[in-house]
């Protein structure tokens, strides 16, 4: 019997291996090798896409010590953390709230659950342009709405003011990806056993106490996934800032994040902020490292939180 089981297990393993082999090859060819190549380029300098002068760790030293590299990198890193925090907090609170609502039973709930995913299906560039129009002081509805509520003193040049531009873009990005967060939380809530919820109801829990004592604790693993996906997405993000502010990441680099810094430093002309592919690869390698460390920290923090 044991022999038969072992043969079956071996067959399953072979089956799984050969079916996943094409994906492994593609992954190796299009992900692993470019990452290693990019890391390799960070030790070189020179014009064009293939820098040819080996400089060792000079690029890494420059990016932490010399102007303008240090200033731009620290600025982009700081902006990226802010961008990530704003989006993650808004998405977690908003996503969880909407997920709790769409997992209740009422007429039309299926329709509402489906349309929460609609923004995610829109192209990012389109969303960026849409929000540019929404926030426009000339034709945008946001400022008109604020005026209507006699809150005209809050009107700002949303994408033109260094103090508000990054947050305005973060709001656009939050709206864009909220659908995925709602989907994850809703799936998590759906997976809570009905028996648990019934037992809690019988014990007198309802509404907020049910949410606080049953749903929220059980959503912690889902929150971990949301935080991790948000971290990866926002620290590799580029398109939303590009759609709204262009590659300059203005005004005054106030919306510059690691993705835009990488693109501009790698591919733009020097007069437009380009540093060459060597330095650009350095930015990319450091971003990769930051994302890796960030993910480990998120897992560690959530594990401790779950234990408690």
């Amino acid at each position, binding site marked *: 019997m044991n022999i038969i089981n072992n043969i079956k297990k071996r067959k399953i393993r072979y089956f799984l291996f050969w079916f996943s082999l094409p994906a492994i090859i593609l992954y190796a060819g299009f992900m692993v090798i470019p990452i290693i190549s990019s890391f390799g380029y960070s030790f070189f300098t020179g014009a064009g896409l293939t820098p040819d002068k080996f400089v060792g760790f000079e690029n890494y030293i420059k990016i932490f010590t010399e102007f303008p590299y240090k200033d731009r990198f620290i600025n982009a890193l700081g902006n990226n953390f802010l961008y990530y925090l704003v989006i993650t907090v808004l998405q977690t609170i908003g996503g969880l709230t909407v997920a709790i609502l769409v997992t209740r039973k009422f007429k039309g709930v299926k329709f509402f659950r489906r349309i929460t995913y609609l923004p995610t299906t829109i192209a990012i560039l389109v969303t960026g342009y849409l929000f540019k129009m929404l926030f426009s002081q000339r034709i945008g509805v946001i400022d008109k709405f604020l005026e209507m509520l006699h809150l005209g003193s809050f009107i700002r040049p949303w994408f033109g003011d260094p103090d508000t531009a990054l947050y305005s873009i973060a709001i656009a990005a939050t709206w864009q990806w909220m659908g995925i967060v709602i989907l994850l939380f809703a799936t998590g809530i759906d997976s809570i056993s009905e028996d648990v919820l019934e037992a809690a109801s019988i014990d007198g829990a309802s509404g907020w106490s049910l949410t606080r004592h049953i749903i929220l604790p059980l959503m912690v693993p889902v929150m971990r996934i949301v935080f991790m996906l948000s971290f990866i997405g926002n620290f590799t993000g580029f398109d939303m800032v590009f759609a709204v502010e262009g590659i300059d990441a203005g005004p*005054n680099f106030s919306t510059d994040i690691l993705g835009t810094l990488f693109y501009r430093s790698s591919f733009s002309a020097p007069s437009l902020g380009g540093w060459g592919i060597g330095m650009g690869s350095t930015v990319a390698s450091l971003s990769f490292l930051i994302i890796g460390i960030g993910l480990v920290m998120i897992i560690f923090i959530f594990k401790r939180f779950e234990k408690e």
Partner: protein
Amino acid sequence: MKKSLLWLTITIMCVALISTFALAGCKTEAEEIAEEVEEEAEEVEEETTEEVEEEAEEEAVEMEPVTITMTTWHAEENFVNLWNALISVFNETYPDITVEYDPASFEVYDDVTFSNLELGTAHDIVYLRPFDLGRQVYEAGFLHELTVDEMPNLANFPEANTGPFSSNGVIYGSPDRGYSQGVYYNKDMFNEYDLEVPETWDEFIDVLDALKNNGKIPSSLGGGTGAYLDQIYYNTVGVNLWKGEEGKAKVISGEMRFTDDPFVKAFEAFEELMPYFNEDFVGADAFAAFDYFEFGEAGTIIDGTWNNGRRLENSDFEVGYFTVPPQNAGDEIYNVFINGGALGINKNSENIEAALVFLNWLATIEAYQARMDVGFADIPILAADYDTENDLLAEVVTVVGESTISACVHRDRLGAQDPSAATLMREALLNLLSGDFTAEEAAKHIDDGLAKWYEPYQ
């Protein structure tokens, strides 16, 4: 069994790695072959005599059918139509040369073109930017050197127009078109409020005052588009103050700095205009600013003549054009003139001869007239009495003809590294607009930033 599976996986990944490097090796071989072909082509070129060239010109209309591709950063539909119309005119004389117009979007053009030139997949003809922006392309050795021997009509262009597309005395780009930067104005609004085209700076301020008192936006500005701040607003307002090329040469050599009087005064002049801009001038981009003018809400806008036709299609009023006036009546009037772009030939093109025929034709008065006829609204680089129905273009050409033209002060040499003069100027102007900098501080910001890498300032 698990071990053998692991080894098999490692073996496959190694094969993938080796394959990748092998393909890179093939590319190296292709480069060697391309070098050999280039050496042979150079030998053939040396054998060409004047008689052969004349024969070639006579026979130019009867070439072997060939298709060449060209790319620019004008991917807008109307530009595609204009270029295709112009190519049709070219084909009346040269029916055997098909030119395919294949543009890329403005935002990604430089990066895509440079990458393609590096990879050897670029178009036969590429559009080039002037001065520092284009220098990286010229000096990387991607382009075919243009000479009067191969392209006789290149001699038609003055050195001021070929200079921005040259490096070490070698011309890489045949100038294509020019743009002026000045002030568009709403003629109907000026007539309504009995306003005249100002001839001095003080008169300009009076005109803006009058427009403001009548409830109009005197001048619209798009502070949200960084490139407009440094290239258009600062340069257009300041060119009279630093006396065009004279000031530009001094600031490049280090004889003058941005903290010197004319350049600080340019920032002060900009400050003087601030009360006359649209309320949302900080956040509005250049397109939104032009909307204010195009739809009759603003009386003037400082902008470039690339908007002729394209952005003024919806205006239901007569549009006029003047340069920013000098401080005093009778002073020399300067106008920022941009060599909008030039056409270069990819060194690795298989159709260099056909590309040269096309470029040679474009460098004629006949071609510039054809451009006007099909609807291009840019300023012809070759001076002549052109026949145009576009009154605005005719007015622009007259205004530019009466001025002393000058390139932007900060795009030559001062943009070779980051932070470039353009980036620093943008930061300075944004801080000036928000009230965080004074005019002197704005000027100092540029000087201090350039001093970090630009030798004449160190």
